[in-house]
């Protein structure tokens, strides 16, 4: 399974990412997911979220998840970008792409990966209240 992981303070350039997509003819499904910063946290308006990561462990834990994902589903490739630092409301903080032969496994793998990320990958958020 091809894998690409980037933890970055830079904005996510969706157009460039889509242009770089590279999949074999046997792949019939691509699932893209964006996690976007909502305008409120605990009922209070916010302007942004400041993301903090323990980067060395983030990389390791994501790779463990990718290993497990490859065992569970016939995923050809995964690309994942998570932003750190300040991410403003309406901007994506997370971008995920899963390519697989069929939609069922692509959706299932993507859902599982994000659920597991929220359980074990050491990233935290600090809302910036207005």
């Amino acid at each position, binding site marked *: 399974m091809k894998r690409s992981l980037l933890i970055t303070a830079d904005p996510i350039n969706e157009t460039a990412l889509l242009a770089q997509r590279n999949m074999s003819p046997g792949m019939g499904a691509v699932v893209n997911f964006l996690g976007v910063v909502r305008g409120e946290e605990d009922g209070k308006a916010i302007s942004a979220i400041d993301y903090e990561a323990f980067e060395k462990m983030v990389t390791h834990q994501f790779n463990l998840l990718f290993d497990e994902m490859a065992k569970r589903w016939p995923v050809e490739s995964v690309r994942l970008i998570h932003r750190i630092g300040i991410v403003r409301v309406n901007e994506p903080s997370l971008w995920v792409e899963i390519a697989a032969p069929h939609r069922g496994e692509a959706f299932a793998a993507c859902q599982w990966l994000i659920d597991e*990320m929220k359980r*074990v990958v050491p990233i935290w958020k600090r809302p910036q209240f207005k």
Partner: protein
Amino acid sequence: MFGNNRLTVIMEVSVHFYSYFKDLTGCAQSNQTLPDGSTLGVLHDKLMADFPKLASMKKSTLIAVGVDYQLRDYLLKHGDEVSLFPPVQGG
């Protein structure tokens, strides 16, 4: 000529705090000395004694040694890098 004196071997580990645990402790890092053979649980108890605000988060605290999660019975080694943090919130 050591008589009955016992030699206590001491090891040192570094502890890193993340997210609001830095606010609870007032620091991002602390070096801790422990008797050789101490477990992660012993270290956690010592940290909650040194930084009492950590105790309120005892049940939900996540602990890693290096880049892997470990449980309280993990046997620490000299030079280990330990990290303590609250539940993760990526996405």
